[in-house]
C-alpha cells in the first residue's frame, strides 16, 4: 500500500537559511508518527509544507496521494490541523466553534450535529458545550481544538505541539483522544517536546538542524543508542545541533 505521507529530498530555504534540508521519510496509513526535534530544528516548517501552508524550495512531497507543491487544495480537504498556538474562537461557544469549522469544510448540519453528540457522550460534560471557549481551562481548550480539527473525519491530522503547557493528567486524556482517532484509521502526525509522549508513538523521527537524524520505533531507537529512555536518545542527538533557536 502506498504510504499516506511520502517525502523525498524535501527542502525549504528562507534566503540563505536552510530550514529543512533534504528530508525523506514516509508514514503509513493509521500510524501515530512522532516528529521530534529541538526548537528551531525545522519541525514546524516541514509540517507547514505538508499542510500546504508553505511551498517547498525543492524536493517531492505527497500527502494522501496528492502533490504538496501543486495539489494543496485537494490536500486541504483530507487533513486536519491543530496549530501550536491555541486556535479556537474564544468569543464563540464550543458548539459554535464546532459548527463553524464543520461548516467551512462543507459538512451538513446533520453531520455536524452527529459529531457534537459524539463528543457530548465522550466527555459527558453537557454544560461545557454552550459556554464560551474563552472561559474553559486550557486542557479543555486543547481537547476541543482537537475535536474541531477532526470534525470532517480527515485522513491525516497534523498536531503541532498539541499538549504544550497542560498538566500530565490532561496530557494523558489528550493521548486517549489521539488513540481513539488512530483506532478509527486516522493517521496522526504529531510534534512534541515531551519524551514520554514520544513513547506513545508507533514511530518517531528526530530532526536536528533541518535534517532527520534518526527515525525508527521508540523501542529500536533505544536499542540503537544503548539507553532505556527516549529522553537520552533525544539528548544524544540534539546536543550535536549547531544552530540554536532560530525560527
Amino acid at each position, binding site marked *: 500500500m502506498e504510504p499516506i505521507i511520502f517525502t523525498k529530498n524535501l527542502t525549504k530555504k528562507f534566503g540563505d537559511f536552510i530550514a529543512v534540508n533534504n528530508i525523506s521519510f514516509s508514514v503509513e496509513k493509521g500510524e501515530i508518527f512522532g516528529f521530534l526535534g529541538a526548537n528551531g530544528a525545522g519541525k514546524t516548517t516541514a509540517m507547514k509544507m505538508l499542510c500546504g501552508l*508553505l511551498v517547498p524550495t525543492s524536493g517531492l512531497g505527497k500527502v494522501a496521494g496528492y502533490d504538496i507543491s501543486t495539489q494543496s487544495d485537494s490536500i486541504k480537504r483530507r487533513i486536519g*490541523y491543530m496549530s501550536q498556538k491555541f486556535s*479556537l474562537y474564544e468569543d464563540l461557544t464550543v458548539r459554535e466553534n464546532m459548527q463553524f469549522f464543520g*461548516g467551512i469544510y462543507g459538512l451538513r448540519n446533520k453531520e455536524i450535529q452527529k459529531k457534537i453528540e459524539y463528543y457530548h457522550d465522550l466527555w459527558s460534560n453537557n454544560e461545557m458545550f454552550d459556554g464560551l471557549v474563552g472561559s474553559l481551562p486550557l486542557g479543555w481548550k486543547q481537547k476541543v481544538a482537537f475535536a474541531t480539527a477532526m470534525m470532517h473525519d480527515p485522513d491525516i491530522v497534523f498536531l503541532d505541539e498539541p499538549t504544550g503547557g497542560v498538566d500530565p493528567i490532561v496530557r494523558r486524556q489528550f493521548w486517549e483522544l489521539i488513540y481513539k482517532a488512530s483506532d478509527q484509521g486516522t493517521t496522526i502526525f504529531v510534534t512534541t517536546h515531551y519524551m514520554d509522549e514520544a513513547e506513545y508513538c508507533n514511530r518517531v523521527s528526530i530532526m536536528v538542524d533541518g535534517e532527520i537524524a534518526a527515525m525508527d520505533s521508540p523501542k529500536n531507537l533505544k536499542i540503537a543508542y544503548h539507553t532505556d529512555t527516549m529522553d537520552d536518545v533525544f539528548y544524544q542527538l540534539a546536543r550535536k545541533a549547531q544552530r540554536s533557536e532560530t525560527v
Partner: protein
Amino acid sequence: MKQFKAFVIKEFYHVLRDKRSLLLLIGLPIVQIFLFGFALSNEVKNATIMIVDQSKDAASLSISEKIRNNDNFHFVGFGYAYKDAHTAFMRGEIQAAVIIPPNFQKSILRRENPTIQIIGDATDPNTATAVINYVTVITMNFQRQALGMTSPVSIDVRNHMLYNPELKGVTNFVPGLMALVLMLIGVLMTSVSIVKEKEMGTMEILLVSPFHPLAAIIAKAVPYLLVSIFNLCMILLISIHVLGMPMEGSYFLLFSMSVLLIITALSMGLFISNQTSSQQVAMLISLMGMLLPTMLFTGFMFPIENMPIPLQIISNFAASKWYYIIVKNIMIKGLGVAYFWKEALVLVGMTIFFIVMSLRRFKMRLA
C-alpha cells in the same frame, strides 16, 4: 455557499458578542451627528451685534430691522457714531458691528453704490466670518428688493446662494459625516478583525482549510457592510428629519454610491491588515492613515480651495473627498450620475488598486 454562510454566521457572533464595540459602532455616528448638528455647528447663533445707523432713513431702518429679527444675531443696541462700536468692541460687548453711512437711501436712489461696513471681531475668526456672511446676505437681499422696487428690471433673487440661502452648516457636515463614519467602520473594523485572526492563530487554521482566503475576507466584510448601511440610514433619518438636510436626488443612487465607498474602505482595511500582524498597529495605521486625512481633506471641516497647492494635490488621495462631492451632488443638487461619474470612477480605481496590492502581498506570504 454553505461554507460562506457558516463563516458569515461566525462573523456575526464576533460582532454581536463584543457589546462595547457594537455600542461604539452604532452609537458613535448618532452621537456625532447630534454633536455636529447642535453643538459643533459652524452656524453662529446669537452673535452680539451693534448697528451704527448714521442715516435713520427708510432704507437703513429696513436693513437694521432685518438684522434685529435674525436668529443668528443678538442685537445689543444702536450706536450713534463709529466710536460707540469701537468702545463696545474693546469691552467685549459685541462680536460685530454694522455701520450704515449717512444719506443711505438717497445714495441708493442716486445709484451711487453706498457702502455698508461690517466689522467683525476676528479674534474668533469663524464667528466673524459667519457674521459677515450673514450681514452680506441680508444687505444683498435688501439691495435686490430695493432695486426691484424702483427699477423696471426684476432680479431673480433665487440666483443668490442658490443651494444654501441661510448659509446652513448642515449641508456641509452631513455628507462629511457620512464619509467619516463609513470610512471609520470600513477601514478600521476590517483591518482589526483580519489582523485579530492572525494574532489569535486562527488564520493558520483557516488557511489549512479548503475555504478560500478571499471568500473569508468577503465573509468578514458582510457584518460591517450591514452595520455601515444601518448607520447610513440613521444619519440620513436624523439629518433629513431633525436637522433639515435637503434630499433632492435619488435614494438608490445615494445608497449605491455609499456602498461603493464602503467597498473602497474595506479594500483599504484589507490592505492595512496585510501589512501588519498586530491589532494595535492596524488600529494606529487606520487612524493615522485614514481618519486624519478624512477629517482634513474631505472638505467639510476645512475648505480645500484655501489650502496650499501641495496639500490640495494630497487631498486627491483621500477617498472621502470624492464621495463628499458625489453626496453633495445627489442630496443637495439632485443631480444624476452624469454629473459625478468621474468621481465615482476615482473611487472604483482606488478600490481596484488596494485589492490588487493586497492580493499580491497575499500570494507572496503564502509562498
